């Protein structure tokens, strides 16, 4: 398969076929809810929908999100080649109804109709030492993006200081504010440190981790587990109907901060946690 077609297939998989780690996590959450509750009913519908979307090759959710690409390419390659292939694939994927047209010009309010626009799809390029290319895509829905938020510590309303205890407080606050609006149960990507932009960037890229994958830093891993446990006591539940699972997982990462700033960026991924990856080497493509 050539580059263009393999990217189109990557998009199709991302929009229609949820990754096994997410499906497994949702299945466990389903079993965990009591019979006869609306929460259990929601999970049943979610799981049925996942199967139907996969069988029919149609979008799991009609909001097929913003297209965010992350590319690691070998030395000597040119970025333009990937950009052109991605744009072609986005247009084709829209024609095939794998994607809804989701690129709107904020000045004219016109929808381009084909998912192309200034910075759409958004592409992060990174050159690496390997002789293969890795292309990862995330479909980030609008509803879940709207509940993402950023705090600067200290945050007096919660008495949240500039330490991990403060980080924990603002994350719990963000989940309470989100309620079911981001299509709970969500997954949280958290970036600690950096500036306004890089804290969000770090929070987003966490979504390429697998459910259950803990940060290699022991202290952060402990914080992830602690927060997951805390937020699932809030009884917000799937869709905010009340229930035992509010969040599927919490992925935290940290980076250097300026001495005067302490940002905590929180990105929320809906239950339809759509991200896929492909590696291309000598014309051979492997998807994950």
């Amino acid at each position, binding site marked *: 398969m050539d580059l263009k077609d393999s990217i189109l297939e990557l998009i199709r998989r991302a929009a229609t076929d949820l990754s096994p780690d997410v499906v497994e996590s949702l299945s466990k959450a389903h079993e965990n809810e009591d019979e006869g509750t609306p929460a259990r009913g929601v999970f049943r519908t979610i799981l049925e929908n996942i199967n139907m979307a996969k069988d029919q090759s149609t979008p*799991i959710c009609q909001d097929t999100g913003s297209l965010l690409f992350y590319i690691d390419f070998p030395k000597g390659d040119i970025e333009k080649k990937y950009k052109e292939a991605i744009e072609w694939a986005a247009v084709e994927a829209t024609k095939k109804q794998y994607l*809804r047209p989701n690129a709107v010009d904020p000045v004219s309010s016109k929808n381009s109709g084909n998912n192309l626009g200034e910075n759409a799809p958004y592409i992060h390029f990174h050159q690496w030492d390997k002789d293969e290319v890795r292309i990862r895509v995330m479909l980030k829905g609008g509803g879940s993006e709207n509940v993402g938020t950023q705090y600067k510590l200290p945050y007096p309303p919660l008495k949240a200081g500039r330490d991990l205890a403060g980080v924990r407080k603002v994350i719990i606050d963000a989940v309470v504010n989100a309620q079911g609006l981001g299509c709970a149960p969500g997954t949280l990507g958290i970036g600690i440190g950096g500036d306004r932009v890089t804290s969000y960037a770090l929070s987003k890229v966490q979504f390429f981790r697998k459910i259950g994958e803990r940060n290699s830093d022991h202290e952060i891993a402990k914080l992830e587990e602690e927060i997951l446990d805390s937020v699932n006591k809030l*009884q917000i539940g799937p869709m905010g109907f009340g229930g035992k699972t509010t969040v599927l997982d919490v992925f935290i990462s940290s980076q250097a901060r300026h001495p005067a700033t302490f940002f905590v960026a929180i990105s929320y991924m809906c239950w339809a946690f759509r991200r896929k990856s492909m590696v291309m080497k000598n014309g051979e493509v492997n998807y994950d």
Partner: protein
Amino acid sequence: MTKLNIPISDEEIRKLKVGDEVSLSGTIVTARDEAHKLMIEEKPDFIREYLKESVIYHCGPVVKQDENGEWSFVSAGPTTSAREEPYQADVVCEYNVRGVIGKGGMGAKTAEGLKKCGAVYFHAVGGAGTLIANSVKKVREVFKLEEFGSPEAFWVIEVEDFPVVVTMDSHGNSIHKTVLERSKKIMEELL
């Protein structure tokens, strides 16, 4: 699971209570931001017959048109309803609507409107795009497609066994309010 056929009477809608699981069948209409703005600012009559004792669905579908020009729904889950809060109560009363399907719930003004005019808020499962599209059996009409674009147009559709949960009833009860208040209280204990 309660089965309800559209059109729905005032009496039938008043019987529903929060937490009830309902399966809806009949003709409903999709409407999002542009459509709600229009219904308040211009009160158009073209949509009146379809909305009477029917249901509004907050949805921007993925649609397909075949060679004969026939439309069908490919993926069609609910969108966030909160954006229609400024308009919803007035739209419900103006057009004699019996229900609103969406996600995330709505606020106090809508709750008041539901009570006054006899309607409920049905919550669909956000993200269940393919499953809900499968319950859309036919696209009867589409209005404002050119002007608003496909996600924002009024799609008049026939649904069969569309699964929803009543999260705001016509008696002023709201699951969203209860869950929010409870989670805030738990948060205080956690912090």
